[in-house]
């Protein structure tokens, strides 16, 4: 529990073909390096879960890792569309992508239910929208006291939950601050989990606004400095806005994306294999 290991070994142990995998991070602390490691390890048929699929999921979808996407907002934030996601949904390239679509409130509450060991969550949401007709995972529920009808969504309990955080100590306790989104919920909701961190330190000095996950609630911790790039890790790095802009052009075209995949993500595979040879 909270075992400190390498990113490669953690992904190799956690991610399997067909797994339900959630990488979370609400604009901040997105575990991009972990997503790219999943690409490198060639995982297939994943059900990818994420409130805000953005660049890292566009990369994973474009690389053919995913069979299904469960989400609430898929876009390149501040820039525009996710072209690999659109290509998969509209044209089935490189493989067809099934989607299950929610609202942010619905997804957040699905993680809350998952973290709380409940089979479902209740919210005021979705009512009157066309989202309801598209999935069996949005249902009415009646208050047993007032008779009011609300909305229920089922818990999310991914096989693997992955987030990025600022720091861990040597016992594997994790500390994060700034916008922490659904970080706690996804780690607690998932059967197994990985937290990549900017830095492993001797002691987690208390910080305003910090959220702590005790080591025994996490499966693996891996030190991956810059592991959230092009998103940011408050106190460690800035958001790389140029990358978000540049991704638009790279991802718009299948060949450009293929070149990018070969020359960046997969080059590291060769480098790694070279190390071992």
């Amino acid at each position, binding site marked *: 529990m909270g075992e400190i290991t390498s990113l490669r070994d953690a992904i190799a142990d956690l991610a399997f073909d067909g797994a339900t995998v959630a990488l979370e991070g609400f604009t901040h602390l997105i575990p991009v390096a972990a997503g790219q490691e999943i690409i490198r390890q060639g995982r297939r048929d994943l059900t990818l879960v994420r409130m805000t699929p953005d660049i890292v999921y566009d990369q994973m979808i474009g690389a053919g890792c995913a069979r299904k996407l469960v989400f609430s907002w898929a876009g390149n*934030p501040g820039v525009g569309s996710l072209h690999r996601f659109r290509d998969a949904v509209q044209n089935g390239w490189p493989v067809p992508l099934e989607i299950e679509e929610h609202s*942010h*409130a619905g997804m957040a509450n699905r993680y809350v239910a998952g973290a709380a060991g409940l089979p479902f969550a209740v919210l005021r949401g979705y009512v009157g929208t*066309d989202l309801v007709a598209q999935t069996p995972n949005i249902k009415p529920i009646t208050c047993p006291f007032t008779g009011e009808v609300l909305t229920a969504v089922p818990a999310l309990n991914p096989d693997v939950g992955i987030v990025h955080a600022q720091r861990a100590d040597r016992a594997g306790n994790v500390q994060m601050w700034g*916008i922490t989104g*659904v970080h706690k919920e996804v780690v607690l909701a998932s059967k197994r989990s990985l937290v990549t961190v900017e830095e492993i330190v001797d002691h987690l000095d208390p910080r305003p606004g910090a959220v702590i996950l005790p080591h025994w609630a996490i499966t693996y911790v891996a030190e991956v400095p810059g592991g959230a790039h092009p998103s940011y890790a408050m106190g460690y790095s800035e*958001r790389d806005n140029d990358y978000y802009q540049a991704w638009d052009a790279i991802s718009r075209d299948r060949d450009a994306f293929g070149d990018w995949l070969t020359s960046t993500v997969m080059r590291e595979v060769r480098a790694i294999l070279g190390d071992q040879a």
Partner: protein
Amino acid sequence: MMTIAAARALRDGARCFVGIGRPSTAANLARRTHAPDLVLIYESGTIGAKPGTLPLSIGDGVLAETADTVVSVPEIFNYWLQPGRIDVGFLGAAQIDRYGNINTTVIGDDYRSPRVRLPGAGGAPEIAASCREVIVVVKQSPRAFVERVDFVTSVGYGSGPGDRARLGLTGRGPALVITDLGIMEPDPETAELTLTQVHPGVAPAQATAATGWPLAVAGTLSTTPEPTAAELAALRDLNRQAGP
């Protein structure tokens, strides 16, 4: 003009749930002009953010650093949005219809095989449901202003008066739709979006031509006052800080 008109619609001291892009610019403009105590709330969990520069995403570091408090995403939706604590929700739209229903999901008739796949719902359905009122900011064109949206992502007035109450939606719904040509408001009787204001130099016919249904025009149509020097300066300042 659209941004300035949107900024003006924000009362000082109001709690405003802000999306990224034009809503965020408008809210920050309001905070720098007539509404210094506007409370900016972003769905990333930042409450009372006071960014010095325009954030590029709803989760920029500057929002967390300047916020009164940062809460989790479940908390922002469950404790702050859902119970009706937010005065104004700011939404954009790919399509909006006669009754202020919003589509940000798919263009085309077949959800499973869309002509254009859009980003999806995000926080919008519950913002549209639970904020005391909603302001929609969207550039006007017949493609965007349609008789009936292809997909209801967020409910405006449904199919007409009384629908919100029937659905149990607690907020009032879209109070203003602000475009680059003018402002529409729901008719108090029919709930149909009605042109009530045009921006300087815009003829009502331009607005009706840019609308995909026979747009009702209010009997007394006002004209948006020209931007003030202070507004223009503040806007320039915001845009300059946001970088290229």
